[in-house]
């Protein structure tokens, strides 16, 4: 299996051209292998689940809370689904032709890329001004929570902190998707300068051959990484025990019971 592809410039120099498309199949395999492994683990493991009586007690003690707790504003939900539509369009237009489904994909691809870029800019502004910006990020302070989560996954009782608004898995996923998306969008915007669009005057010499090669490789690596990440995301969104989170991305709220069962109200800043 190749990882990168190389070409020759008119001056006889070797240059990177892009990633090997073998990596697409590797990403698909990795994504589905993770899916199977996790699903098997969830079937066979004894991960700890709070019993109903315990949650009943928690809920009885907090009747001051509304029955529905707002989790995602309309703006946040709109961003999420617009970004999801753009991401699926980007992945299908990029990789279906490689898989053998041939169609005129370039224009759809860069248009979806612009939608993704615009939605990310919106999200950055929205999250910075109107949301608790730091609640989604992870850092050393989250190590106790990580340890507690791991213990619970292993079926042990753990006193460590529960998450605030976003579970640790959400925050880790967000970090990886941010890195991948920023690489893919930044490199994609540069690559748009090489194709005919109404926005740029084509300039294939904006970068030298080596930098173009790195740009295409970065775009490709981030793209195939997103294949695996999206598979994992869709998988978790569809898992029965996570469905309440997915539902909140549609409706905007979770129940008081879900709020108390899965979150630490002290760490949840709206």
């Amino acid at each position: 299996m190749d990882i990168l592809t190389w070409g020759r410039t008119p001056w006889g120099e070797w240059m990177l051209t892009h990633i090997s498309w073998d990596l697409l199949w590797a990403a698909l395999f990795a994504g589905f292998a993770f899916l199977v492994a996790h699903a098997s683990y969830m079937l066979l493991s004894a991960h700890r689940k709070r019993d109903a009586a315990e949650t009943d007690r928690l809920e009885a003690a907090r009747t001051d809370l509304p029955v529905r707790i707002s989790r995602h504003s309309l703006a946040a939900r709109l961003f999420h689904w617009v970004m999801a539509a753009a991401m699926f369009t980007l992945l299908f237009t990029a990789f279906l032709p490689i898989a053998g489904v041939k169609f005129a994909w370039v224009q759809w691809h860069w248009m979806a890329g612009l939608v993704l870029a615009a939605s990310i800019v919106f999200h950055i502004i929205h999250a910075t001004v109107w949301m608790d910006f730091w609640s989604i990020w992870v850092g050393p302070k989250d190590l106790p929570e990580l340890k507690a989560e791991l213990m619970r996954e292993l079926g042990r009782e753990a006193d460590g902190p529960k998450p605030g608004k976003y579970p640790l898995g959400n925050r880790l996923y967000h970090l990886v998707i941010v890195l991948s998306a920023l690489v893919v969008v930044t490199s994609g915007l540069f690559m748009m300068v090489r194709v005919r669009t109404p926005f740029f005057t084509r300039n294939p010499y904006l970068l030298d051959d080596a930098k173009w090669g790195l740009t295409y490789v970065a775009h490709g690596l981030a793209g195939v990484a997103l294949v695996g990440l999206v598979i994992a995301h869709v998988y978790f969104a569809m898992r029965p025990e996570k469905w309440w989170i997915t539902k909140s991305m549609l409706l905007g709220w979770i129940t008081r019971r879900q709020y108390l069962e899965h979150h630490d109200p002290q760490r949840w800043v709206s």
Partner: protein
Amino acid sequence: MAVIRDVMAPFELFQPTSVDAALELLDRHGSSAWVLAGGLDSFDWLKDRIKRPSVVVDLSGVAELKGVQPKGDGLEIGAMTTLTEVVRHPVVQDRYSILMKAAEAAASPQIRNQGTIGGNVSQDTRCWYYRAGWSCYRAGGNICYADTPTAINREHAILHADRCVAVNPSDTSPALIALQAEMVIRGRDGERVVPAEEYFVGPGTDITRMTVLRTGELLTSIRLPGTWAGAHFYFEKVADRNVWDFPLVNVAAATVMSGDTIDRMRIAVNGVAATPLRLPAVENAVRGKKRDDATANAAGDLAIGGAVPLHHNGYKVPLLRNLVRRAVRGTDNVWTS
């Protein structure tokens, strides 16, 4: 890159005598196999050592791919039929003279004796950046060297460019499109038949291929229906030289008249895009119109809609317009604009 000419890299040569045997070989060797028809395109690639297949499947011994046969109310031309045989066939001369003219215009007599109609429609582009072996889009790279500020792109595309600006160099293709021909393709999984205008693939859909032929498939024959047999035909090719040259632009039109008005027309051009282009907008615009200068002028203007010339091929815009005008008018009038 230093190009070694005239000394081919070694390969394993197979010379099957049936289509089934050829398909079996192509299936066995997959993408490492190269299909050799007349060799006029292939030997450039092989001698320049730009393409280095490990296996070459020579179709010259497959008799069932040769010859022109009656088929329904039309003809079926084997893909390995030489251009000379096409030009000399009496039915082609009598009922499909546009194909005769196109095949005759394709090359010199010696080349027509060797070149096949299947090879002529399936040949690769002549873009010299691509054929020099550089890593352009069409060769799997990430740049079109012909579409840069300093590129020499006098022969390149003015329509439907998508990253790659190479053009299709076939002369017979627009004639086959005008005749509503069908391309018969066979693979190990069976046979499929595609209209001539759908046989060609643009860079937007697949930047590394010129035709819909997939690995392991062969173009076995070309069917000419009787639909346009004996129509008024017009074929014209403009090239830098009158012999042995690829077209800068060519045009082929088949017209059925009803009195002095155009009842129906099929028209196609080549040399302006990565695929031969049928011009349905022109066909619709001229239907029911008198065959006069006004109709021809309107058709010419329609044909160049959306044209985006590169640095050195702006001349192709008026050239295309005037060739379409002449084809619609049916005469080689001289237009000065």
